[in-house]
């Protein structure tokens, strides 16, 4: 049967994309399968088992590290989001020049290589002798979470324009009521997307946490990195798989939020 004319059809493209998707997912799948290995050796399959997951969950150090990660990510997300909301509104209302200048400044944490952010923050904290334990890391994480929290909000503010806010003002809403009744509800999905993004990025961080943190502030990636350095064990696989699953849950949450937004 001859194909109907389709301007965008390219032979083999579908197969190529399938290969790329395999490239993206196969390593994650391999890790997941390995983590169900019941044996003591990574490379020798000894039947499927949840034994190493149990070991990870019972590991007090991992529990502490995970708790640290969540405290830091949670605090940094809340702070970054609270800072990003007014900043996104301000950037879109600013004159072109000011908007570009401030926009580039706020993008700095994205542009400067992570390792540089890590060591300069380390140098800065050491110089001013700031030793607040977890709070040091919360500050460092808040900084690089701000641009991520801000991105979706800015896009939404831009897409919204000023008309709806003008309509509310025209209907006798004073500035605070405009913000509370119109701006905030319309931004809410974007605020949530930004917050999830910030949370994921904070949990993801290794370099900054490793350099800026100290013995009492070990985060989950820093702890797991240490495990990997000591040796590849089934427990590392199980811990990694748990982190993988948690990331996927967050990704799903983010997607369902963005879908709800696009239905509006």
């Amino acid at each position: 049967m001859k194909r109907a004319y389709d301007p965008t059809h390219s032979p083999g493209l579908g197969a190529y994309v399938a290969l790329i998707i395999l490239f993206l997912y196969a390593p994650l799948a391999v890790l997941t399968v390995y983590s169900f290995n019941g044996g003591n050796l990574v490379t020798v399959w000894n039947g499927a088992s949840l034994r190493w997951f149990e070991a990870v969950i019972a590991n007090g150090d991992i529990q502490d590290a995970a708790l640290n990660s969540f405290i830091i990510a949670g605090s940094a997300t809340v702070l970054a989001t609270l800072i990003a909301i007014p900043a996104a509104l301000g950037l879109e209302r600013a004159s072109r020049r000011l908007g570009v200048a401030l926009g580039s400044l706020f993008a700095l944490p994205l542009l400067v290589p992570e390792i540089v952010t890590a060591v300069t923050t380390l140098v800065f904290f050491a110089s001013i002798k700031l030793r607040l334990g977890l709070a040091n890391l919360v500050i460092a994480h808040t900084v690089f979470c701000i641009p991520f929290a801000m991105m979706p909000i800015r896009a939404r503010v831009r897409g919204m324009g000023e008309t709806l806010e003008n309509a509310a003002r025209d209907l006798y809403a004073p500035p605070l009521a405009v913000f509370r009744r119109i701006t905030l509800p319309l931004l809410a999905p974007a605020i949530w997307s930004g917050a999830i993004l910030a949370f994921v990025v904070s949990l993801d961080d290794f370099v900054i946490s490793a350099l800026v943190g100290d013995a009492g502030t070990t985060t989950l990636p820093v702890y797991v990195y240490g495990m990997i350095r000591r040796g590849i064990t089934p427990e590392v696989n199980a811990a990694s798989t748990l982190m993988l699953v948690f990331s996927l849950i967050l990704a799903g949450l983010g997607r369902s939020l963005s879908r709800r937004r696009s239905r509006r």
Partner: protein
Amino acid sequence: MSEPAPRKPIIDLEGVSLAFGPVRAVSDVWLTIASGEFFTLLGPSGCGKTSLLRILAGFETPTSGRVRLEGTDVTTTPPHLRPVNTVFQSYALFPHMTVAENAGFGLEMLGWPKQAIRERVAEVLALVGLAALGDRRPDALSGGQQQRVALGRALAPKPRVLLLDEPMSALDLKLRKEMQNELRRLHREAGITFVLVTHDQEEALALSDRVGVMKEGEIQQIATPRDIYRQPVDSYVADFIGEANLIPAGELDREGGGLVMVRPEDVSLAGKGVPVRIEGRLLELRFLGSIVEAAVATPGGTMIRARFPSAAMEEVALPPGETVGLAWPDAAERHLER
């Protein structure tokens, strides 16, 4: 230039200008609008009519000049303190609120009690023919229905003036005609002042008590639709409103230069005994159903269009290329300086 306003003035613009950097969007506008009037600002896009409307609503503060509402200076009064409501071009319905919540928003902001809001919203939705749709979200409505919600929402707080910013530009032709009738009815029933902004001259002529024609931030002429059409002040207005033949006065052997304007429907092919105003070469005769349109090129190079009933065609069955005489009554022509 402006006609005396027929009733008590409600809006006074006194030398209002608005500049965005070097761009002057509105330039020294003096305008008085009477209470209860249906006033239209007409002009092509970019002529400053929307900026002028935004000044009335309070979204823009004029660079110079004053805005008075019922005699009170409101030049710098923010929009939420002006008894003026707007129907926005894209309707600007709040997507996260129902139709009834949209319609009641202004009343809520004015601090009306809940029960009173409910009653007024029901009244307004009935007025715009949406009584059954109060619980819908705006995105579940058709374009015409959204337009009605926007109207109802703006009318609900009983504003002194209703501003309409190209409210019908997003509707198709049939709906637009329907909404025009609707607007006239609402204007009659609400008994308040309407200020409409549009680029559609037919809409302006059909709806308004008076029309202000704008060009490059300035009002060129303010008059009733009839006067705007019959007695335009210059070639810009003549050309923008309807179709106009603009013939250099020299071609008609008139003194003093300038242009002579004649509407195509007033021009006829001169028969026997009718004095010929100007002669030209017939380029084409186009049959348009009830009327016939003739295009005639004068020796001076001006193209003149004439429109007459199809019935008259039998008498003038001429081939293109023929030289013909054109005629029109004295009362139909108007001398324009520019």
